[in-house]
């Protein structure tokens, strides 16, 4: 029997789950494979969060403060879960740090918050030329530039005249095996488009899309201002070929509202890459014998009314480990997972 809650992953979901469980009075063990807390937003160098443009590090700093220097929370940085046994109320888990040193911990409940990784556009063969053309970049690359308050053509460091975002790269695609919508890319592209326009008022910015999926408040928090205030041009039409021409990128696609072909020269093309399960999500799921869906995300059988319980009693999930999530989804799930995990260890303790 253990009254501790083990949280695996120190990104937004894991940080919120650890804080919430600690706030509920539980002992928490937080494991993060990187040397820093903050997860993918930190690792990938996010500049400003969607939809409110808050600097990512400021938001992450607040979340880190929720777990640091608290007696209830033990943090294992640079550590991975390599083995697990036991059952709800009494899991024995083996952690391993970068030096290969192993630590055994006991936990009554586990929250998997191991997140996602960005789709690798190299998997799209001969379509977007991500590894061929330096000026074809991803949202992640764009975010890195924007975090340094610049946006240039990687090939020559010049300011681009025209920038295009291409939506649904690696998402909504049966051929790639990723049939799902990655949920956040429309919003992030629009957010970045605004940032590029703010930074470079003379640069034309286009977003080529199949459907704009700006659910809820993102519609008028990001999409409408991008179009109405920042003059971002939304063109319904998808692109299936990028070739080089006269030192620029010639983008070929179909303008679907006009039923006509389009060929447009661009200086930078940003691929709106979607989400795939992270390596950590796949590994940890296997370690705990938690069934995954066909994409490798943690399967959540009780959805939609129970969004955090896995098929293994005592093992819960929060954030993008369970599929494409935005930050609100992730931290909301984290709170729910913490409540269920703490309730479980209390029940086990009382029994």
């Amino acid at each position, binding site marked *: 029997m253990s009254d501790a809650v083990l949280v695996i992953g120190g990104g937004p979901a894991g940080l919120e789950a650890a804080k919430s469980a600690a706030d509920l009075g539980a002992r928490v063990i937080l494991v993060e494979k990187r040397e820093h807390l903050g997860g993918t937003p930190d690792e990938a160098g996010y500049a400003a969060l969607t939809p409110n443009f808050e600097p990512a590090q400021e938001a992450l700093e607040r979340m880190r403060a929720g777990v640091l220097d608290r007696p209830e929370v033990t943090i294992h940085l640079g550590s991975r879960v390599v083995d697990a046994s036991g059952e709800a109320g009494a899991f024995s888990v083996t952690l391993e740090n970068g030096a290969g040193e192993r630590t055994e911990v006991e936990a009554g409940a586990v929250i998997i918050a191991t997140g996602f990784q960005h789709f690798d556009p190299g998997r799209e063969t001969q379509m977007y030329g991500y590894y061929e053309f330096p000026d074809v970049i991803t949202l992640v690359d764009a975010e890195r530039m924007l975090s340094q308050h610049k946006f240039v053509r990687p090939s020559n460091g010049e300011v681009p005249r025209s920038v295009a975002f291409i939506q649904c790269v690696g998402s909504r695609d049966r051929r790639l095996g990723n049939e799902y919508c990655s949920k956040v890319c429309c919003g992030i592209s629009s957010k970045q488009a605004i940032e590029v326009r703010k930074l470079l008022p003379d640069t*034309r910015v*286009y977003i080529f899309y199949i459907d*704009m999926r700006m659910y809820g408040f993102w519609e008028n928090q990001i*999409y*409408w201002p991008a*179009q*109405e205030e920042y*003059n971002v*041009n*939304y*063109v*319904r039409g998808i692109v299936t070929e990028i070739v080089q021409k006269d030192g620029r990128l010639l983008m070929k696609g179909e*303008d679907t*509202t*006009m*039923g*006509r*072909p*389009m*060929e*447009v020269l661009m200086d930078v093309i940003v691929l709106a890459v979607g989400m795939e399960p992270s390596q950590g999500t796949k590994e940890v799921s296997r370690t705990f014998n938690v069934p995954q869906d066909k994409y490798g995300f943690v399967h959540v059988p009780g959805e939609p009314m129970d969004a955090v319980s896995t098929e293994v009693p005592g093992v819960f999930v929060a954030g993008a480990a369970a599929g494409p999530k935005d930050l609100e989804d992730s931290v909301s799930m984290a709170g729910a997972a913490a409540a269920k995990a703490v309730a479980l260890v209390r029940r086990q303790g009382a029994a």
Partner: protein
Amino acid sequence: MSDFMQRGLDKAHGVTEVEHAVVEGIDISGYWSRMLDQRMTTEFPTEGLDWITSLDGGESLRNCYQCAKCVPVCPIQQVGDYGPWKMFRKAQRGSNFLDDPDLWLCTTCANCLRVCPKEVNMVEIMPAVREQAVLEGAMPDELGEVFANLQKRGNPQGESPRKRAAWAKEAGTEVPIISELGRPVDVLLYVSDYTSYHPRGHDAARAMARVLNTLGVDWAILGREEKSDGDSARLAGEKGLFEMLAEQNIATFSKYEFDKLVVMDPHAYNAFKNFYPALGGEYNVMHYTQFLAPLIDRMEFKASVERRVTFHDPCYLGRHNGEFDAPRKLLEAIPGIELIEMPHYRANGYCCGGGGGGMWLDSLMDEHVSERLSERRVREAVDTGAATLAVCCPYEPSRFEDAVKSTGNEGALDVLDIIELLDRAMHPEA
């Protein structure tokens, strides 16, 4: 190459549909478009959209997110290729509309604005771009003539200003002129252009005079001092001319004391109510149906007008200014009238084609539509089984009566202003 094929190539944006087509011995019947089009590449130059949205009134074009809800409710779309969304699309592809005949097709009926989730306002966008076209002299000739008439004579027809109240002679009742009265009146009646000069307008004006006198209203008209309200010129792109006419009218109104400004023309109503205040002219403006509807109890009907009547909502009374009930109250008060509605009524009323300069663009319109809007509206009215199409906008009688003839419905439908129907019930002897 066959002529037919050449035509296809010439028509670069065309979609061609033919039931039977044989080109050089090969049957290519069917629906096809790109076969004959050269593959054209698209650029998305932003100058067109940037320029239009930089104009005062053009800003909201950028709001379009291309849902195209506007297209099915656009009256021009029913009879042609035009649609508000298509204009956004053209702008997004670089057009500034100046060389595009579509710039002149919109009647500013506002049905697109009614359904637009992003409030893209063609009622402001079109006049803003038209104004630039007018400044460049790039407007249809027929419109230029009307603007010249308004400039020189204060009315679109180019009639003598001295004859503006000529209708009054045969009214069979007193028509007071305010300058001759030399005292304040309760109601200053703004007669309007088409009521003043068109023969069918005269009928309405005279009916109005009889009804007002019978009801004991203290009223007068401006007579030859009255000038066009200018609203349709504004919407057709002549903002300067509108402001000139407005200043002249405001100066005239300021010479006299009156409590209510009652107008026969919804376009004038729109101008006086919504646009004259910014120019210094604030009035208690009422459309005549709004003035008369509360007086129904005082009306003594001496005859029954036995007929089925359907009512055409004027765009500038209904959709633009929210008045749908007053005309219906009057019609329903008239003994014998059975009011039946057309499928397109109230907020979804179908435009007659006369607004926004359409009244003066018949030739251009004819080149771009399969039938006139007024003809389509008349067919809809006939289909209800009504014997009378009731109207309360002076643009309508001439437009709809022409359409009754051109659609072969002469004798099947007559077009009467509501004031004429009231007059017939109150004054069967006249």
